[in-house]
């Protein structure tokens, strides 16, 4: 069918096509031989350019420390019909909040999660462990040695994240904290002048 020898790009495509999980560039490079991980990234770019030009219905996605082939979003309604039975339910607000804390604070104990959310999280944690979005990451040293939780590779896959670093940076927080320091200075000045912490005084300022 094809007389010429298989090219690295074709082999890469065959591997991505046949894989059931994202393949890291290291693993791909190991199987391709004579190819370094950085070449893999170039080949992936070439493949995606091919697919775009040839209006293929899928593309290579960089996710969870590797690459995988996925359908393009514009075919979601057709493919969704096909895969409807396998779809997992959307995560609840409680699950998403808990998950975002786990993602940023990991490894993190249940007590810390509850202190930040202000509510019990055990039911939510169970769901997240069940859905393999959260894993047990060890135990904290010290009293009671509570379990520590962290996110899984499936977490990255589920949210289409190449790595944990690609989580949205909490820039807002930095702004808030900078703000807080300024506020504290102001407040201190206020305090020195004011007789009491009267909130009516504060309200009047508005």
């Amino acid at each position, binding site marked *: 069918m094809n007389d010429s020898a298989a090219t690295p790009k074709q082999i890469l495509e065959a591997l991505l096509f046949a894989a059931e999980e994202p393949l890291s560039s290291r693993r791909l490079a190991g199987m391709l031989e004579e190819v370094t991980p950085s070449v893999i990234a170039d080949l992936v770019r070439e493949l995606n350019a091919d697919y775009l030009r040839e209006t293929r219905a899928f593309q290579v996605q960089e996710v969870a420390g590797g690459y995988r082939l996925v359908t393009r979003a514009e075919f979601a309604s057709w493919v969704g019909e096909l895969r409807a039975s396998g779809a997992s339910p959307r*995560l609840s607000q409680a699950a998403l909040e808990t998950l975002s804390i786990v993602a940023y604070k990991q490894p993190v104990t249940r007590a810390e999660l509850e202190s930040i959310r202000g509510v019990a999280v055990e039911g939510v944690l169970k769901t997240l462990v069940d859905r393999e979005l959260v894993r047990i990451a060890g135990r904290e040293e010290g009293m009671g040695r509570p379990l520590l939780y962290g996110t899984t590779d499936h977490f990255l896959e589920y*949210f289409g994240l190449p790595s944990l670093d690609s989580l949205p940076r909490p820039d807002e927080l930095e702004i808030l904290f900078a703000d807080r320091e300024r506020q504290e200075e102001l407040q201190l000045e206020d305090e020195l002048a004011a007789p009491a912490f009267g909130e009516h005084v504060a*309200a009047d300022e508005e």
Partner: protein
Amino acid sequence: MADEARSGHTVRIESLDFEGPLDLLVYLVQKNEVDIWDIPIALITEQFLGYLQGMTAERLESAGEFLLMAATLLRIKSQMLLPRPQLEDDEEIEDPRRELVLKILEYQQFREIAEELRDRESAGRLVFPRGLQEWDDELERESGPGMPEPEDRVSLGDLLRSFTRLIDEARRDRVHHLEPLAVTIEEKVNFVRERLRRDGQTSFRDLFVAGEPRSHWIVTFVALLEMVREGEVRLRQGETFGEIHVYAAGEGDGVA
């Protein structure tokens, strides 16, 4: 206090659902458009309590968390009303609201990240990886393997749930399954030996430990019979239906 709170701003809030007390606080801060660094604590406390009163029975399971927060708000409110102590030049006094504000901000930040994750979840639901197919060998020989067999992994959750279920079952039929196996004849033989070594003799009745399941008594009895058969112990009964005494062989006299 109740009437005061009711006269406040409870009307629209009570029909809303909140994830927890912090969620409600964030809502109140935003709704009132107050400066987060200068929260009018009396107003917010009043509205917060108003919400608690409107809480429906179904929400009561999380009432504890709301009540704790209410207590915190009331404490801060009372601290705010205290006259401020005289300050030395470089002495700082912390605003009683500060810890609460930091908590609200931290929570708010994670809520924003949760929003981002929600968007990503929605986007993720629009793309699909390759479908995993089962391949029969015959077809593969023709075409080369297409896909590996689905690696149907068992998760840690599966493993833990499986163990939990076993514990639950064991608990339910403890008497039928676990207890008879919890003690062996050998252990009971050792137990009798130990008792005889310590006391020289023992009464038959004392060998049957009160509170032990009946099945253990049977094991003890079988152990004792075994020891009699081996000539290791002797039994003596003073009178018919009287107390039976157990001796190590060579001690006492008369054999049952």
